[in-house]
């Protein structure tokens, strides 16, 4: 394969708070290739959003602090880049779509102004060129009557339409990399389905590389080539979408998949529940962050952090951070792999 588009090496981010230091991202490393779609799954506090924001200098400092790491985008380290260059990248080569379109859009500017901003800034287009490109973009994301609607303000759009505007802004300058953070979480399922179809279409047409951050395993199943499961600021497991869902190697992934109803009707079966509560990242971590909730944890899990390594006999790049062997533990209990 060619050189990766994005390479994250040993990224660690902390927040200094009055209550102590929060370890939000711990030693995260991965690579992303051109045209690939990476789905990052995790719950709140897993570090999935913070790690993405910190890559492009969007974590406010203080309280945020990048303790270590390199983020190489097309070979250049984003963390060492001067702010001016980063500004050129953000909204240009790297597009963003955030969760909440109502707070991300400026309520006192028309959609047209907000769509033209990145085009004027990054593309050196004339105002009239930017205007017609802005209309094209709105049409591309499937907003009807784009010519008229572009003069409207965000509050005149419905939630789904606003999210489409956000996506239009995110892809305005044909980014190499699109980072979407819970971009469809606030939307109704029918609208979410439309937005996901749109992203699939964009991938096909422009070969956009995508990082799709979500807590929804279903969304990832349909969209991602590679899935990365995060918990407590660490990558628990990473691999091609098929093996992750069929033969998960991390007890956390396994538990998450088991705890979702799989289309069964009301039965006497109780849902599998992961015991305990999400970790408190204030405590300095020892060992595997999931160990206290993991029924397969070995004594070693509690005091030594497992490295993210290749799954034995995997040829597809399936990685897991675990001291225990999940398939073996499940076989011993005669449970299904997923």
């Amino acid at each position: 394969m060619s050189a990766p588009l994005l390479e994250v090496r040993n990224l660690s981010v902390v927040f200094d708070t009055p209550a102590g230091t929060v370890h939000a991202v711990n030693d995260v490393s991965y690579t992303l290739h051109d045209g690939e779609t990476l789905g990052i799954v995790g719950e709140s506090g897993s570090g999935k959003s913070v790690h993405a924001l910190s890559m492009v200098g969007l974590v406010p400092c203080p309280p945020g602090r990048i303790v270590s790491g390199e983020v190489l985008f097309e070979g250049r380290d984003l963390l060492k880049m001067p702010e001016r260059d980063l500004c050129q990248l953000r909204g240009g080569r790297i597009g963003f779509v955030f969760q909440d379109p109502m707070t991300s859009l400026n309520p006192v500017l028309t959609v047209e102004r907000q769509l033209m901003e990145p085009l004027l800034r990054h593309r050196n287009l004339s105002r009239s060129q930017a205007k017609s490109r802005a209309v094209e973009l709105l049409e591309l994301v499937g907003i009807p009557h784009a010519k008229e609607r572009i003069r409207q303000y965000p509050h005149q759009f419905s939630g789904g339409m606003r999210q489409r505007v956000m996506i239009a802004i995110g892809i305005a300058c044909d980014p190499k990399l699109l980072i979407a953070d819970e971009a469809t979480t606030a939307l109704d399922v029918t609208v979410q389905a439309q937005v996901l179809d749109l992203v699939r279409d964009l991938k096909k047409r422009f070969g956009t590389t995508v990082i799709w951050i979500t807590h929804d395993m279903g969304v990832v199943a349909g969209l991602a080539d590679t899935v990365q499961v995060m918990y407590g600021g660490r990558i628990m497991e990473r691999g091609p979408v098929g093996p992750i869902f069929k033969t998960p190697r991390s007890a956390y992934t396994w538990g998450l998949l088991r705890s979702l109803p799989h289309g069964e009707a009301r039965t006497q079966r109780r849902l599998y529940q992961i015991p305990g509560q999400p970790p408190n990242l204030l405590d300095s971590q020892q060992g595997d962050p999931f160990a206290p909730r993991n029924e397969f944890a070995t004594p070693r899990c509690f005091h030594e952090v497992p490295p993210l390594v290749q799954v034995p006999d995997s040829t597809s790049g399936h990685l897991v951070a675990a001291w225990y062997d999940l398939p073996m533990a499940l076989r011993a209990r005669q449970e299904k792999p997923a």
Partner: protein
Amino acid sequence: MNDTPLLSVRNLVKRYGGSSTWFGGNSFGVSAVDDVSFEIAPGETLGLVGESGSGKSTTGRVLLQLEAPTSGTVLFKGQTITGLSASELKPFRREMQIVFQDPYAALNPRMTVGAFVAEPMVVHKTASGSERQDRTAELFRKVGLDPSFMTRYPHEFSGGQRQRVNIARAIALNPSFIVADEPITALDVSIQAQIVNLFQDLQDELGLAYLFVAHDLSMVRYLCHRVAVMLRGRIVEMAPSEAIFGDARHPYTKALLTAIPVPDPDIERNRRHVPFDLEMHGPRPGQTLQKVAPQHFVLT
């Protein structure tokens, strides 16, 4: 389950913003709930699904009389509870409770969670002194919390634990009916199954009936005996769960079903979303729920 409904909702309407205008005309405002009727049997779970703005949460609030309906009647155990005064409603309040979506906002930050759970018993004078203490501890155990947590404040708890506190308060007066308004939506994924199981266990143990308001259809299928689908303030389809998920008739229900992402790459990659055209298939005035099969109704 027996045949007499615990709760009957008849032609419920809730309009917001309607008022007579300066020039003697009338503006009708927005109908959040438009001619909604359904029944819930003792011990039954009815799922109420729909997108934001469909009126599902408003239906829950209006039927509990947290807001007065514009018109329509609600009967609880055969007695009309619409149009009652606050004091006349009080005995019914003991029987009908609600659990909200946001477990953070629902708790009082300056009250210990023990006092919070015990408060309904104070208001309704059902228990006092050590009896109330014991009952509170029992409620904590029932929802899976250690009674030693009673003296703590809400900020010391995680989202899932806070929702347990809210549930403990909701069952404090031995209600027979609970409106659960998106009770797991705001929780972490790894916690949702815990709370769903808790709802199931409490139903088995206490014979509770639920109105489960949600937009997560896979959870609804798992939890509910029957499902009502709402769109634009109206119920467009209502049927037993198997029928909704196996034999959906209304175009909107079909669109909704094909839009739920399923955690299985093989299914997800081969699915076609059925689009829904609101102009063509949206509810129109004059349409009524027609029976298409036993217990299965479609707006036509």
